[in-house]
């Protein structure tokens, strides 16, 4: 191969490589890869902060990127999304613009509805959902919280510094310190007494004669058995008495009749009256009844 032909070949090869790299690389970066995707569309209000290349997430998984942003005079922007072919957007999915990091970058979040059947078609327009609060809203909340904190701080300063609250707190702390010291002393004394008591108990326990204890326990057991027998006898006696009382209450038997029959009472009353009259007559006329003769 001549030098001229080799030069031409090398230069041509270099040019070819550069063209392939330049065009292929540009397409690869601009389209998010060489794989073909499909377009979908959505719309947002002006000021959404979207630009080409920002990621598109479906349920948190990146499925594509923003391919194009067109400004519409009616106050909206038409956003063309380029989604990867292997992902399909479920029906009912909504699109929102969300913050990507804390420095103002954005992404488009596609939020599907769980359990919804079917998928959207390529070229459909995804409806806009309710956006989460952005950085300005969060900053506004932060300002509000800061204002509240400032008011609280001012009030605390007024109460604690101007109103002498700090002095009171210091006094309270000093009192508490003294109280704690006293409690510590009492605790130490009680601990000492408890230790002594414990030692005494230990000594007492050590001096107890186990034979005496056994004898006492046996006596206690015998006494307990006697009490148990006594209780059984008492229960038996009680049952018998209860039976007698039942008979009396039922009106069966002589005693019951004496207690329960009014006729018996009337006869006894009559008998007592007659006895009274007899006694009186006896007192009045003893000789009538007593005729004592000696010899």
């Amino acid at each position, binding site marked *: 191969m001549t030098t*001229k032909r080799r*030069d*031409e070949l*090398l*230069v041509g090869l*270099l*040019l070819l*490589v*550069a063209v392939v*790299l*330049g065009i292929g*690389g*540009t397409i690869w*970066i*601009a389209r*998010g890869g060489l794989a073909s995707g499909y377009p979908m569309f959505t719309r947002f209000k002006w000021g959404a902060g979207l*630009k*080409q*290349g*920002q*990621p598109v997430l479906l349920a948190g998984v*990146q499925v594509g*990127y923003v391919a194009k942003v067109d400004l519409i005079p009616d106050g909206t922007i038409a956003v063309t999304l380029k989604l990867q072919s292997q992902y399909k957007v479920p029906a009912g999915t909504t699109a929102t613009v969300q913050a*990507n*990091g*804390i*420095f103002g*970058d954005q992404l488009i979040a596609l939020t599907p509805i769980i359990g919804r059947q079917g998928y959207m078609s390529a070229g459909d327009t995804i409806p806009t959902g309710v956006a989460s609060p952005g950085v300005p809203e969060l900053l506004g909340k932060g300002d509000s919280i800061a204002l509240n904190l400032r008011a609280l701080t001012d009030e605390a300063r007024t109460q604690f510094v101007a109103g002498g609250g700090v002095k009171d707190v210091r006094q309270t702390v000093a009192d508490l310190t003294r109280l704690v010291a006293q409690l510590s002393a009492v605790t130490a004394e009680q601990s000492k007494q408890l230790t002594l008591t414990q030692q005494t108990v230990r000594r007492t326990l050590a001096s107890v004669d186990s034979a005496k204890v056994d004898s006492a326990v046996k006596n206690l057991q015998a006494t307990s058995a006697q009490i148990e027998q006594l209780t059984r006898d008492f229960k038996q006696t009680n049952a018998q008495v209860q039976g007698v009382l039942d008979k009396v209450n039922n009106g069966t038997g002589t005693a019951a009749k004496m207690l329960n029959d009014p006729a018996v009472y009337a006869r006894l009353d009559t008998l007592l009256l007659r006895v009274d009259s007899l006694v009186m007559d006896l007192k009045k006329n003893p000789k009538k009844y007593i005729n004592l003769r000696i010899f």
Partner: protein
Amino acid sequence: MRPTGMVVRLAERRAEGLLRALGKRAYFARDIVRGVRDPGTWIPETIRQMRTIGVESVPLTIIVAAFLGGVTAFQTRYQLFPGVQLSVVGLITRQSIVLELGPLLTALVLTGRVGARMTAEIGTMRVTEQIDALETLAFDPVAYLALPRFLAGIVMLPVLVVLANTAAIISAWGILVTSTDVRTSDFLDGLRLAFTAFQVVYSLIKAFLFGAAIAFVCSYEGYVTEAGAEGVGRSTALAVVIASVCILVLDALVAAVLAPFIQA
């Protein structure tokens, strides 16, 4: 003579020298354009120059770009504030390389490697009267010496810049993934963020202008070399300096004119 008069005379002389220098270069540019009429003179030499400027510069260009991309990405990662998403590294690295560092550093490196060689070659031919011989043989020396280098410069610089950008981005990706906590997905997200094809065109426009500047300045300085070997050395050094300054000025001008169109 009064001091004021001397200053005026000096200023006049300087202005005249500057204008004459500009005029000479304008004539040289005109001769380059005229040389296009004789393709048989410049086409074979253009291919040879394209190999010299382009093919033989590929290793140096890739090595420089690989280090450039790796260091840029590494520095970018460690200058980020905590909380910034890591994809920003890919975005900043891409913008730095494609829009600025790739074309600029490639051109400056090639100024030293290719431009100095051009000046030395043509200057040596001038001081050894080979150019005079070409004129005697009815060859157009500008069409034979300057035009092929100019064409090779404006064609091969963009080619080399494409290679440099590619090598730098690949190097940046490799360094980030192996040496930092940036993942491939983060890098690719940033690489694609707010990317437009015009950013590549912008890079190629710069490369085209830088290639033209290197070839033109270095060819001219070689073509007007005087005073033997010492003159060749002086012309070579002057050519490198002027070409480098021209590259920086052109870089600023292109940025001033086109930067608003590539705002991320």
